[in-house]
């Protein structure tokens, strides 16, 4: 359980002075805390004996003043430094995670769902951060502070009284511990119910057109009401346990007070104790309530922190699948791309996703890739993006195996337009500039024109400065694709990769964009995958993929003559006339 503090050793090491000072001052403050009640007791004794004098009074008031001022700064300082460490840890870990995410390749993201990774970057981070501040505080409060109170009770007042008055404490601690576990279980159930409610609402909202079209509003409300009732019941289920904490503490401390008063009365009449000491003792009892709870908190915080840190660490320790070689070969411009007998299988896949791929593409050529959904078109492109290590066969650029080149070098040549149009929540300008950070106004203008986005831009409220994504306007699929194309074109890359990236624009726009690309990119390499054969007709080479294999290849004319899948598909699309 306390492993978590050991595992965070690197952090404590880094800030050891800060932590040493904070913890030391916290201990001093804890000890200082037991003095005022003691003095109160003495004053009461003096008062009841009628022995109070002006000088004595000033003396006491003076000491109190010193404790007040000293204590204030002491408390301020340790609190500030200790919790500063906690938020610093949170910041540091968050940065580490982000840097790690930026390094990870798709294999990592296939194994870890976004939701899980986000949970690590948020909830887990909070739990870990809690250990470094609140955790340490409760650790000291439940041990040293508790110790200080017990010692003060014993040494300054009476060990016997302390023993009897503290008897209910361990029983209370066990109860609280047990209830804590129960509450946690029930709380998780309540959270699950809430999660289900959340999913349900998401479906109602995302499917709002269906619900309205089929007039299901009222029935949907009824279903929602039922689920909200379940959430209510689960919450109340938790409440029933939660409600016990206060009363149990009340009875526990009540018994302690009764012991203190009853046994105290005996001791006072015996002359073993004064009334002032009894007051002091009872104030101590009041002070001891928090440390009892602190034990429970401590166990919680440390357990959760430990589990969370393990999860965070697991993410941080993941090694990127694609590593750069130690001695990379430098290449100026890619003149020839060659695949030889390349095989590939996704880590999560049962079958080979690419089999025996061989082809050669010269600078300036256009390669078209067609085939059914799931035939391996995108997988083929991903080899060039170096998203996975190559297992068998080779991918060669300018005669050099891609594995002997740095990932950065290869990616610098490539302009990539993915299948699912990913735009970031920023302005359209910033999204296009993602392709080339320092592009000039003219370059932006040109990219937009080539991507056929000019007219759309006029209709957007703020033109280029329109915010898109979560916080801004939502663009249509076709618009997103074209921004995504502009983003790749602005880079004027040596190799342009279009992964079925015109599926949401109509046939006419598509043919215009393709024409633009052909014209602008003479002398540069382009790779296009598509479902619409019209977009690859002009290509120098076309391959047909099926189940990861090249089944047909050649130019458009050659493929038509082969009378295979390509011809069949071509005829079909011809009959249907594409989209209008």
């Amino acid at each position: 359980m306390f492993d978590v503090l050991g595992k965070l050793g690197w952090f404590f090491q880094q800030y050891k002075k800060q932590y040493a000072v904070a913890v030391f001052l916290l201990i001093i403050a804890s000890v200082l805390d037991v003095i005022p009640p003691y003095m109160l007791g003495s004053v009461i004794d003096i008062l009841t004996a009628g022995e109070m004098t002006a000088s004595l009074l000033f003396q006491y008031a003076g000491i109190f003043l010193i404790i007040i001022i000293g204590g204030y700064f002491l408390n301020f300082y340790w609190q500030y430094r200790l919790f500063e460490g906690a938020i610093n840890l949170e910041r540091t870990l968050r940065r580490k995670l982000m840097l790690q995410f930026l390094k990870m390749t798709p294999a990592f993201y296939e194994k870890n769902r976004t939701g899980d990774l986000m949970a690590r970057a948020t909830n887990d981070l909070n739990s870990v951060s809690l250990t470094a501040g609140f955790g340490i505080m409760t650790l000291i409060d439940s041990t040293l502070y508790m110790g200080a109170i017990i010692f003060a009770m014993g040494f300054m007042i009476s060990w016997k009284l302390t023993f009897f008055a503290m008897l209910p404490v361990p029983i209370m601690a066990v109860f609280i511990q047990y209830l804590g576990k129960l509450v946690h279980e029930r709380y998780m159930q309540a959270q699950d119910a809430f999660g289900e409610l959340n999913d349900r609402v998401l479906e109602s909202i995302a499917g709002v057109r269906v619900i309205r079209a089929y007039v299901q509003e009222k029935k949907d409300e009824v279903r929602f009401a039922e689920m909200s009732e379940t959430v209510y019941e689960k919450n109340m289920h938790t409440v029933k346990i939660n409600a016990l904490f206060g009363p149990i503490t009340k009875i526990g401390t009540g018994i302690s007070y009764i012991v203190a008063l009853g046994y105290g009365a005996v001791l006072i009449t015996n002359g073993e104790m004064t009334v002032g000491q009894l007051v002091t003792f009872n104030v101590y009892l009041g002070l001891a309530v928090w440390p009892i709870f602190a034990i429970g908190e401590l166990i919680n915080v440390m357990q959760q922190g430990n589990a969370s840190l393990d999860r965070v660490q697991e993410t941080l320790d993941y090694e990127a699948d694609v590593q750069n070689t130690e001695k990379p070969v430098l290449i100026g411009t890619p003149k020839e791309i060659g695949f030889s007998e390349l095989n590939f299988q996704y880590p999560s896949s049962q079958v080979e996703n690419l089999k025996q791929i061989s082809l050669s593409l010269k600078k300036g050529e256009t390669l078209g890739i067609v085939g059914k959904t799931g035939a391996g078109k995108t997988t083929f492109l991903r080899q060039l993006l170096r998203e996975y290590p190559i297992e068998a066969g080779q991918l060669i650029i300018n005669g050099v195996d891609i594995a002997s080149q740095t990932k950065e070098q290869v990616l610098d040549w490539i302009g990539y337009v993915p299948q699912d149009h990913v735009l970031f929540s920023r302005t359209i300008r910033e999204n296009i500039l993602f392709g080339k950070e320092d592009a000039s106004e003219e370059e932006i203008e040109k990219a937009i024109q080539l991507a056929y986005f000019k007219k759309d831009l006029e209709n957007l409220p703020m033109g280029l400065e329109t915010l898109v994504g979560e916080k801004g306007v939502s663009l249509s699929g076709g618009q997103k694709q074209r921004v995504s194309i502009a983003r790749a074109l602005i880079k004027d890359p040596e190799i342009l990769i279009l992964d079925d990236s015109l599926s949401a624009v109509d046939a006419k726009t598509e043919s215009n964009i393709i024409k633009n690309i052909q014209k602008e990119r003479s002398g540069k390499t382009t790779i296009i995958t598509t479902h619409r054969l019209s977009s690859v007709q002009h290509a120098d080479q076309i391959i047909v993929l099926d189940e990861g294999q090249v089944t047909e290849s050649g130019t458009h004319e050659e493929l038509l003559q082969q009378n295979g899948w390509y011809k069949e598909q071509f005829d079909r699309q011809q009959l249907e006339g594409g989209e209008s």
Partner: protein
Amino acid sequence: MSTGKRLTKYALTYKRPILMGLLFLTAAVFTDLAGPFIAKHIIDEYMVLGKIDIKPIAWLLSLYLILSIGTAVFRYLMFLFLQMGANRVVQRLRKDIFGHVQTLPIQYFDHLPAGKIVARVTNDTEAIRNLYVQVLSNFATSFISIAGVYVALFILNWKMALIAVFMVPIIYLWMILYRRFASRYNGVIRTKIADINAMINESIQGMAIIQAFRRERQMTREFDDMNEEHYSYQRKLLFLDSATSFNLVNTIRLIMFTIFILYFGTQSISGAAVVSAGTLYAFVDYLTRLFNPITNVVNQFSQLERSLVAGHRVFEVLDMTGEKVSEETMPRYEGHVVFENVSFAYKGTDYVLKDISFQAKRGETVALVGHTGSGKSSIMNLLFRFYDPSKGKIYIDGTDVTALPRQTLREHMGIVLQDPYLFTGTIASNVSLNDPKITHAKIEGSLKAVGADRVLKNLEKGMEEPVIEKGSTLSSGQRQLISFARALAFDPAILILDEATSNIDTETEEVIQHAMEVLKKGRTTFVIAHRLSTIKNADRILVLERGVIKEQGTHEELLAKGGIYQQMYQMQAKSLLGQHVVG
């Protein structure tokens, strides 16, 4: 009305449990505060040196125990009732906002991402729940406790109690000042962390792009800026907290004790009045109790801010004008649709449809043809009354559609969307939408009629096969067929079909073509057409361009006319055929 007031008003909808809770709370405070009085009595009367009188002490201590148990029971009941009330209030609020969202016009959903709307209904109301269950119950407990302590102090010694009262305005002032600063810092921290998390989320989803364009450094830079700013505000808040919250309460408590010593000390020296040991004991006890509630209140401030922000957002939604969901029904209409000089703009005078007139007779199929943005989807939106025309009228069987409630009109309409939406449940429940009027036999029949049984046959549980996460385990063809079956099961008089563009394998394609034929039979059908075969088969083709009907007629008529349609047809044929001429 301020958010706080409105939330209070909501709370009053469940008066009973809340009042019961407050009643038990008051009882608990009284039984609790009686304790020190008993202690005082024991100390003053029975703690005399050398003379022990066990019996009365035992009696008094038994009373003390009973009072403690009483307090415990009252507190338990108080907690239960207050929580019950709070949870009920939030449930009501949740149902209200969910119901209200159902009445909002469709543009609300078009303009906001689904996640945000969901957050209003669930997360924001959850934050409000925390307000009621944590913040308000803590406030109530604290205020009643403090009031109780003051009553006790006045009973003990009114002069000293008067001095203690002076603390109240000071603490109040401090709370206001603290809240002002803390709420500003908390606000920044909240929005920053939301931004950071949104960025991490987005980065994970767009990682392929970030890496392909090698923008890791730029992202790191932007991330660092946000992370550092978040940290710096966290530190500011921490500084404020360390300087003021718990620490300051502790200091004020010690100051009170100092005043206590000085007051009774000077009294003792001047010999004005003799104060009993028991009174002193009780005083110390009460003063200690005075400060715990204050700490509790201070600790709730950040949650209070969060809840108020959430409450504001919830009321914003509730304040939007919705249109009541009507439960009126009408007999099935024939499905004769007339558009008469319809113009429509989503915003201002930016017309996306201009002076559209056409009619579709009962049982006809109308194909809408045009480029993206030509107005095809807007016609669908109007027909379904997701939106209403800016000018002109739409009639169904001669009745102006705006004269009917939206729901009544839609009762006899069906829709198949391009990307069919499936709900979590089973295939059967997705066909029937759990509507009791769709029988099991009907579900089966519909699935069969559209040919879905063939495509679904290799699913283990057939139509009881579970559907998860929008049907992600099903192919797009399967999803399409399920949504066809859904439309068929509801047997609409008017059917609206947004043909899917996505590529489906040839076999499924044929099944879908067949399904469309089945579906169209006997109803007026509008198709946003993408396939030439669909267009050719239509009884009427509307060629749209920038919101205007350029041509209308059958395939042959339009070809013969030699207009845009003919050009479009030829251009596509040409672009597809290239240099190959097919006869």
